[in-house]
């Protein structure tokens, strides 16, 4: 979280070997093993095993969604409703102060209690969904777009550009993410959009490496070779085959990454650099409420629970998506 935010965990492209265009399978595995497993299969895997009896293929058979996935989907649905139409759930306006009733514990009128200004914590948590999710998703979008452009540039631009881009990402990755985000906020100023950019920028290098690794694998693939043999121009091969086939795993990883992005956003808010008051971002609520936790416990518990539940749900659903996807790409026979 705090300091975990930077890395879209496990997305450091073809792994620690900072260079290595053609990475060894094991290195690839090291990278992919770190949570992403996006299906970057080493291209030169000979196929000694005929038929589909390799044990790995078994994982491909998608299971029915378990109870966990169902609950997670429900949580996400509630969060989505809160984000889209908070008035439906909230009891009052998120910024309605009522100093007389400040710091009350949870009761009928205030299910989660009130904060130091007498605002209804429940309503603020509900209204906070939009901001928190926007921040999380927005930063992922920033990261994916920037990372993808950078990664594709590296692959498309020839050796020199590739080397340059990779060194730049090395440098960016040597900056711990939260500190990179701090720097970006220092340059751009605090605020929701800038926080989004900051967190996005912090995870963009990871995505760039992921995209690059993926695109390199695709570029070595049989179908790209087939297209070259057909005499298609380089650029159109790149656009038609390399780009579209490099992206899906990245998008899948992005869903899983959304969770960490949300936590990162909340961490930034916690440091006062996220959305502006009185916006009820969950991290900011915890940050502002932390002095009053012993007076109104709801203030310290519910926003945290909201972040945690949302991120758990995103992880569960994202992981499931990822598994399905993996099943499809890496073990295509089924």
């Amino acid at each position, binding site marked *: *979280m*705090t*300091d*975990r935010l*930077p890395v879209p*965990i*496990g997305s*450091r492209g073809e792994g*620690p070997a*900072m260079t290595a265009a053609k990475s*060894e399978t*094991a*290195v690839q*595995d*090291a*990278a*992919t*093993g*770190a*949570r992403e*497993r996006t299906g970057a299969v080493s291209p030169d895997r000979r196929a000694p095993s005929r038929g589909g009896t390799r*044990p*790995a293929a*078994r*994982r491909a058979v998608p299971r029915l969604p378990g109870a966990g996935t169902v609950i997670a989907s429900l949580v996400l649905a509630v969060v989505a409703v809160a984000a889209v139409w908070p008035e439906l759930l909230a009891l009052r306006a998120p910024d309605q102060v009522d100093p007389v009733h400040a710091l009350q514990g949870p009761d009928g009128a205030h299910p989660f209690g009130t904060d130091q200004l007498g605002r209804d914590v429940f309503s603020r948590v509900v209204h906070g969904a939009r901001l928190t999710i926007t921040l999380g998703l927005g930063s992922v979008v920033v990261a994916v777009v920037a990372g993808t452009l950078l990664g594709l540039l590296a692959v498309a631009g020839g050796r020199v550009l590739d080397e340059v881009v990779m*060194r730049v990402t*090395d*440098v*960016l*990755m*040597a*900056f*711990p993410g*939260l*500190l990179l985000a*701090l*720097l*970006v906020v*220092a*340059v751009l*100023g605090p605020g929701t959009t800038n926080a989004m950019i900051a967190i996005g920028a912090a995870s963009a290098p990871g995505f760039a490496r992921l995209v690059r690794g993926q695109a390199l694998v695709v570029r070595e693939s049989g179908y790209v070779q087939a297209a070259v043999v057909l005499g298609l121009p380089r650029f159109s091969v790149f656009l038609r085959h390399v780009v579209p086939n490099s992206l899906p795993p990245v998008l899948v990883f992005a869903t899983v990454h959304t*969770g*960490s992005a949300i*936590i990162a956003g909340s*961490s930034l808010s*916690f*440091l006062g650099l996220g959305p502006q008051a009185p916006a009820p971002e969950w*991290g900011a609520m*915890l*940050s502002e409420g932390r002095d009053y*936790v*012993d007076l109104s416990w709801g203030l*310290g*518990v519910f926003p*945290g629970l909201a*972040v*945690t539940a949302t*991120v*758990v749900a995103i*992880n569960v659903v994202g992981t499931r998506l990822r598994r399905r996807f993996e099943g499809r790409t890496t073990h295509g026979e089924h």
Partner: protein
Amino acid sequence: MTTASPVRWLARRLLLAVLVVFGSATAAFLAMELTPGDPVRTLLGTTPQTAEATERIRHDLGFDRPLLVRYGLFLGRLVTGDLGTSYQLQEPVRSLVTGQLWSTVTLALAAFTLALAGALVLAVLTAGGRRLPRRIAGFFDLLTISAPAFWIGVLLLTVFSFRLRLFPAAGGTGLSGLVLPAVTLALSMVGTLSQVLREAMERSLEEPFALSAKARGTGLLGLRLRHALRHGLIPLVTLSGWTLGALLSGAVVIETVFSRPGLGRVLATAITSRDLPVVTGVVVVSAAAFALITVAVDALYRIIDPRLREVGT
């Protein structure tokens, strides 16, 4: 071929590390340049100053020179290992950083060791095993991954320090002061580590060689310890490298919540007060730590995976 390359390999990696360090310092320098507002006024703080005084300081700090000249001087100093003197604290950055390093390193190592131990135990006990323990461990992983560290910190502090008074509430210097922050940080990492480890172990347990080992009568625990664990170590080492690298440049939020000294907070303060030498100093140190960890990680790969010993770079 197996033995000739390591030296070259190491040399190349160290060169790259140096490059990365310089790159990071440059990035920090540029970021500080891009930050809005007059750097001299900002570092003088919100208390107003007369124009002459400001100009005088501007001259003293060299801010009246062109950007390129300043960058050149900055690089020059960096090459000689001089990190400069803090504008704000008027103290050599080197001593400032070394002063904070200990606290950062102890916290990072303590938290990391805890997390690693936790992840190893969790993964080794559950990987490829029965459904229920795996589910429970998996849920625990998810929970720790998903709960923001600052929240865990506030909760732990409230319960164990304020209520139960088991641990000092703030900045404790001794072992007891390390417990809560280390546990908080460890909790925020253990889930990811154990998830990655377990997944990798389970993947390797599905490999033919694991089946082979079973076919020669190896039990599940033996299978995990002798075979799967090693395979799990590769992604674990990767992840550990980044985590530790990130930790070594300071855990700003945790340091804040627990009022602990550390590089992270020094850097955060320096960024807001435009204290360029401190910013670049901390960035250089953490980038160097990061780069060295990366080298160490790669070296570890080679130890763990004999196949990589021959691959080079």
